[in-house]
């Protein structure tokens, strides 16, 4: 009887440990890491329903009037869903150097964050990350693809 109990205790403990250590899903602080797949950069399709992706002009982090309109809608959604925390990703098209595009992507993400915070969203709900030109939505080399890739995209933090 005792050995059976010990056996099941071990199995139970192993199971608990393994569930807690699941690497695919959560990151630190229970962050939603499902978009990262088998690595530490996102892959596949992901986003937050209700939060539009913001688009930018070439070489610019400025928010056009369309971008501002989209951001006002995003603000409304965030205000209505107070528990939702987000990561704003900054992206660039492939033109330009990898290093400069990482910095430009950072400016784009920060620019969007700053606009939302000014409208009234708490900055503790938002974090930013730049991926530069490294994660294009469309890997073609034409104006249409480039326009799609110049974006700030919202991902669910939790």
């Amino acid at each position, binding site marked *: 009887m005792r050995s059976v109990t010990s056996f099941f205790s071990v199995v139970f403990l192993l199971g608990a440990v393994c569930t807690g250590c699941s690497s695919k899903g959560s990151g630190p602080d229970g962050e939603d890491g499902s978009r990262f797949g088998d690595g530490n950069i996102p892959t596949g399709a992901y986003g937050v329903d209700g939060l539009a992706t913001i688009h930018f002009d070439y070489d610019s982090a400025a928010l056009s009037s369309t971008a501002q309109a989209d951001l006002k809608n995003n603000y409304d959604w965030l205000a209505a869903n107070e528990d939702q925390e987000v990561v704003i990703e900054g992206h660039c098209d492939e033109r330009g*150097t*990898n290093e*400069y595009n990482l910095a430009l992507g*950072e400016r784009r993400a920060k620019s969007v964050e700053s606009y939302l915070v000014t409208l009234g969203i708490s900055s503790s709900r938002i974090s930013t990350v730049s991926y530069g030109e*490294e994660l294009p939505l469309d890997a073609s080399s034409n104006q249409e693809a480039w326009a799609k890739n110049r974006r700030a995209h919202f991902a669910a933090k939790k």
Partner: protein
Amino acid sequence: MKQGRPRNQLISLLLLTMTYQGELNRHSSCRKTATFFIILSFLVCLIPQTAVAQTQLRISGATRGFPVAVPDLCGDQQSALSKTVTDRIYRNLGSSGLFTVVPSRTYIPGAQKCGDGRSITFSDWSVIGAEGLVTGDMRSLGDGRYEIEMFLHDVLQQRSVIGKRYQSSDEDLLLVADRFSNEIVRFFTGEQGIFGTKLAYVGRSGRFKELYVMDMDGTNNRRLTNDKGLVMTPSWSPTGKRIAFTSYKSRRPELYTISPEGTGQERVTRLEGLELGAEYSNSGQEFLTSASLFGVPNIVTMNMVGKVLRKVTTSSAIDLSPSYSPDNRQVVFCSNRSGGPQIYITSSEGETRTRARRVSFTNSNYCTSPSWSPSGDKIAFVCRDGGHQIFTVRPDGSNTTQLTFSGYNEDPTWSPDGKFLAFSSDGGRGGPRKLVSLHLASGKTQPMGQSSAEQGQPAWSPRFQ
């Protein structure tokens, strides 16, 4: 060479003495003529010998390298091991921009003499066009150790000019070849060669980008990280013992360091925002990096545990890609403060003391990726110009020179002697970027990597002590 002069003067003196003692005494007119010619030959001997200068002139000529033959080593060794040494010397000298290696298929059979009492028949080598000859001996000491003696001979002068003896394990034979190749370069140029230096770079590994290191001839290519994210902007510490880089290992861009063997990866920063491109100071205790601490990437100095020490730039623009001058007094960087990104120089104390000064004056409105040469006299950078092209400029902003003219060429890094640039290039044909090196004096480019995958953001190591 220089030893010729006293010998000729001695001969003249002897002739002069003989004239007055010998039979010419009897004929005064003959004596006067003889005296005249002897004095003339004496004076001619006072003209400086030019044999050394001729060798150096041949080296500096951009079109033709000094021709050197590199036959197999003598000794009791299996030819595969000793061939490691000669193959490496062969490749080193051929890639240096200084030498032309005379191909082994032209060597006269039997010209390479091994065994007791061997002496070199220099005419066997001069007849195939060699002016330099590398020979050597490799002998086993047991326990996997070897003694290697290497010589460089001046074929026309018919004498050896360098002789070195090394002891090595079979793992370090390439080091011996590199060290001897550097001795050859030092003999001809007065400056230590760069053989044995390495390149750190970013390579694609599936959907990820990881840190790689390879020897400067593309051999010993090795992946150092398994961060499963993006690795960016590697750079070497002054001793070559650490490589700093940005990685998304923690799902955010942070600075890390690692050894060139891929061990001891340490995280440096835990900061909100982007930290991109850590350039070591000469002390090895501080970095220059671009950090977006307050929403905008600016240049700061940071210590080895990620504490910000000083703000170098303070603009509301994007400032990035810093590179120290060799004396660390100045910093060159890229900034979009006047619209499109351009290249600026400021004091490493910070631009609040000295206003940043622009040094990129091409027709392009997009110039990035500056790198200050270790010799201090040039800055390399990239401008968009129908693709991306490499330029150099003097630190005062003068003498802008374009080095590439087609395709995409990015991320220039200097060799430690300031004579080569390595950068990533699509060769003007589109497609994946590969690492190439450009010898500035001759304009010759050659591929560096042997990998088929995309390679970028190279950083050339210092010479290893």
